[in-house]
């Protein structure tokens, strides 16, 4: 769906994106992670032909970008760096203007109604957008991206400004769109958002794509088992030297098999409240491969 080869963008002496080889398969839900200033937004802008690459190739929906943007973009819905709208017009009027600006398409009014309905703005009135809350603007931005039933959705921080209820709603909507066949490509620095929604993950750091994999593979087993037991002290004694971490009644024990470990503990007459193999969290992976964001300025 999206592939880039050696994609590089330089602004003067600063390299914003450096030799990125990205591959997003059709039908996937791909999350691009990375600290602030790591090049996520520049990547997205290049995919949409807003910013021109210094070197490298981009292909979106099988077509070269920016050469065939005209064919590609009508099938792509995008939300880039926050929603935007004309403040003096209503949400509906904004969508109508935006839709009319692009290539001619049938059933405009109905599609606008549908898009607003999907993002939970079906009941908006003629109030101008400047009176909207941040969350309403975000929903309107999503509606604009959905207007043309796109095959590919490129979303930059899609749940920005939404409350937990709204975030859940939008996540469900995106999942639904994905099962209908829309490929999702979203960037975020909210790990939880990506962890809950995405199937594939790319991690950027200082312009480079430092990791790209299926979420399942990234959340690999650590070889430890987490045990909660009221008899924690005696469990520690039982597996002396193998307990690598203790937090109250929670223990992390180095052992390859949770079932076997459980059997050992129970056989020793000790009680177990919870037991599960430990998985790497996305946070562990991200922190391991990235540096701190460009918004942090340390003393030299």
């Amino acid at each position, binding site marked *: 769906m999206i592939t880039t080869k050696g994609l590089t963008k330089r602004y003067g002496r600063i390299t914003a994106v450096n030799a990125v080889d990205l591959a997003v398969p059709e039908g996937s839900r791909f999350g691009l992670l990375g600290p602030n200033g790591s090049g996520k937004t520049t990547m997205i802008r290049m995919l949409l032909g*807003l910013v021109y690459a210094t070197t490298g190739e981009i292909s979106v929906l099988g077509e070269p970008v920016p050469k065939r943007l005209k064919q590609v973009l009508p099938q792509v819905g995008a939300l880039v*760096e926050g929603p935007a709208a*004309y403040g003096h017009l209503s949400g509906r009027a904004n969508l109508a203007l935006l839709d009319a600006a692009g290539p001619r398409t049938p059933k405009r009014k109905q599609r606008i109604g549908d898009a607003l309905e999907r993002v939970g703005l079906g009941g908006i009135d003629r109030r101008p957008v400047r009176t909207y809350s941040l969350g309403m603007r975000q929903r309107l931005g999503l509606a604009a991206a959905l207007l043309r039933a796109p095959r590919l959705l490129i979303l930059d921080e899609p749940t920005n400004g939404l409350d937990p209820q709204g975030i859940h709603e939008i996540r469900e909507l995106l999942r639904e769109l994905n099962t209908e066949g829309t490929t999702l490509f979203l960037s975020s620095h909210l790990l939880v958002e990506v962890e809950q929604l995405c199937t594939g993950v790319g991690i950027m750091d200082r312009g480079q794509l430092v990791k790209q994999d299926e979420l399942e593979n990234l959340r690999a087993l650590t070889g430890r088992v987490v045990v909660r037991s009221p008899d924690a002290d005696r469990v520690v004694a039982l597996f002396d030297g193998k307990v690598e971490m203790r937090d109250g009644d929670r223990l992390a024990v180095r052992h390859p098999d949770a079932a076997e470990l459980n059997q050992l503990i129970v056989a020793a007459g000790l009680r177990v409240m919870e037991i599960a193999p430990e998985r790497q969290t996305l946070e562990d992976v991200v922190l391991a491969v990235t540096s701190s964001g460009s918004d942090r300025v340390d003393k030299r």
Partner: protein
Amino acid sequence: MIRVELRKLYRRPRTWISLILLCALPIAVAIFLATTRIGTGGPAFLSAVLNNGSLYPAAALAIVLPLFLPVAVAVIGGDAVAGEASAGMLRYLLARPVGRTRLLIAKLFSLTVFVLVAVVLVAVTGYIVGVALFPAQTGPASTAIVTSVSGPPLSPQQVLMRIGAAMVYVAFSMLGVGAIALFLSTITDSALGATLGAIAALVASQLFVTLDAATSIKPYLPTRYWLAWIDFFREPILWRDIERGVGIQAVYVLVFLGLSWANFATKDVAS
């Protein structure tokens, strides 16, 4: 895209406020003129208006031409691309997709429509105010009562034709400033900056036109032939400056539209 731009222009309160202001100024002048009946000083045609109200559209154009109208054009032209950029809409328009060249052409077109509407409204208001406040010539003598600037009288039909020609010329004169504003608008993301830049160019040009030391560059200044439309009211019409004026505006429009296109089509849109 052109229709979309026109709709945006039409639904912007700013458009209507500037049009109202443009029409209000000649009305204010007319009221002063009618109450005092002092026709000396100020823009062209004012003294002639005292004898014939139907010439007031020409006077109204002379009133708004030097500053009011070009400033309005600079505001709208400067806002064209930079305004979309600072509102964050530029990226969404381009991703819709709207071709960059098409966007520029649509912007220039809607600017042209604004200028035409403004000129027509000013002239129509001028006519209504002129007829209402100043003596309109009646009776058989009216056929040849308007005296042209250079002497021989003009018939009402001739006056009408020439006011029409003057309106077209004035509107065309504004496109040079419009193109400069549009070009600046593609350079910066600040609509205010682009507008001020265009106004600065305008003021500088107006200054050099009056400066004798700058004679060598005068023929190439965008505002040099702005007042040439007065020549439409000579008998016979003096075409020399009018032709040059049209030519110089065409050059400015082509050059700055070309520059805007060259800049905008290759620009990274990072707003």
